[in-house]
């Protein structure tokens, strides 16, 4: 890893000021950024840790009943919030391994938008709002393709707000070496219908499976999508699985998620 300056500001304003300089990257838990820097795929001249910013930590329930999760809240902390949002807690508890969950953050995961990460499926599936230092971004507008988001240079995720679905579940077919999702599906039954978000499968990153959403909105049972298939066009094809295999898994995991939703 090339050397860099390290800063650990204690307010969002100070972090944003530091990030406005050239060639500076924000550091959450570092579980993706540090390995990336070791491989010299990133070589910032300065790294700004967000971990000391008190206002970006923790979980609370807002007046409208939605769950607000601070940007630097770890996967382990989200996993412990089972009674508030069981579907999200279970998803967080399945990311990586215990030591990774102790460091990795929700804001870091969403800012990186790895095409096989778990959190993008939850944010898009539950219809979350990504709150940054500058604005509120609906999940539907936030994810813009593999490793691409609506975030501007130097913009940081300070909070993620999840409306709590009536029922939800995440099913992940794990790639056992990396523990990322070979395919993951988050299903949420919300007030005005059903949302189905798929990670790990598409070359365009996380996406909503609208045909399944339509079928499930009138009949929320696994049987309602028994005959539904997804085209393999645009699916990721690599040594772990072909596009056709991933497309098949999307159907299987969606049915399992519907059956398990609570």
């Amino acid at each position, binding site marked *: *890893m*090339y*050397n*860099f*300056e*390290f800063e*650990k500001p204690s307010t969002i304003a100070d972090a944003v000021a530091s990030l406005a300089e050239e060639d500076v990257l924000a*550091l959450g838990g*570092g*579980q993706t950024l*540090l*390995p990336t*820097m*070791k491989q010299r795929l990133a070589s910032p001249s300065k*790294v700004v*840790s967000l*971990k000391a910013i008190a206002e970006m930590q923790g979980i609370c329930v807002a007046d409208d009943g939605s769950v607000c999760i601070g940007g630097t809240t770890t996967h*382990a902390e989200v996993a412990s919030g089972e009674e508030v949002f069981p579907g999200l807690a279970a998803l967080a508890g399945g990311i*990586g*391994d*215990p*030591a*990774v969950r*102790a*460091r990795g953050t929700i804001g870091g995961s969403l800012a990186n938008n790895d095409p096989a990460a778990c959190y993008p499926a939850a944010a898009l599936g539950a219809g979350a709002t990504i709150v940054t230092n500058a604005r509120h971004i609906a999940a539907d507008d936030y994810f813009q393709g593999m490793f691409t988001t609506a975030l501007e240079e130097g913009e940081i995720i300070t909070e993620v707000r999840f409306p709590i679905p009536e029922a939800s579940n995440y099913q992940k077919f794990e790639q056992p*070496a990396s*523990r990322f999702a070979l395919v993951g599906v988050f299903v949420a039954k919300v007030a005005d219908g059903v949302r189905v978000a798929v990670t790990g499968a598409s070359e365009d990153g996380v996406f909503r499976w609208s045909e399944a959403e339509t079928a499930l909105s009138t009949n929320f049972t696994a049987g309602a999508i028994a005959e539904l298939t997804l085209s393999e066009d645009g699916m990721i094809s690599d040594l772990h699985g072909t596009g056709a295999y991933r497309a098949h898994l999307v159907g299987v995991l969606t049915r399992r998620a519907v059956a398990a939703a609570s």
Partner: protein
Amino acid sequence: MSQVKMTVNGKEMSGEAEGRTLLSQFLRETLGLTGTHVGCDTSQCGACVVHVDGVAVKSCTMLAMEADGADVATIEGQAAADGTLNALQQAFQDHHGLQCGFCTPGMIMSAADLLKTNPQPTEAEVRHHLEGNICRCTGYHNIVKAIMAASGQDVSSIAAE
């Protein structure tokens, strides 16, 4: 270079670190605590697991500067001052939970992390908690057995030798 201070196994320690200095590097090369092993350096293997402020982390995927001011526990602090092994270490010896020993520091630190929050884990819970720790010798059975034994459970019927 900056001065980094931390409490390691109950003692105040400090040393110089660059921005890029990893916690694993700082412990091993600056503080001379080479019990923390670096197996893969890609956060897969778990040989470098230490506790930072009471939580198990992979020290190869944390910067030394991120741990400035923290309370760090490593394998060196697990045995008593006179060298008497703690219950977990003794169980690893009794149940042949190691062969080459390279992964053992990380295994012990991950297992200690589990037993702190779940003092009587099931076999499945032990295996789940060790997902981020790789051992290439034992096939895991005896490691799992040692951890179950250290938690005071009967292990006579667990897993093949």
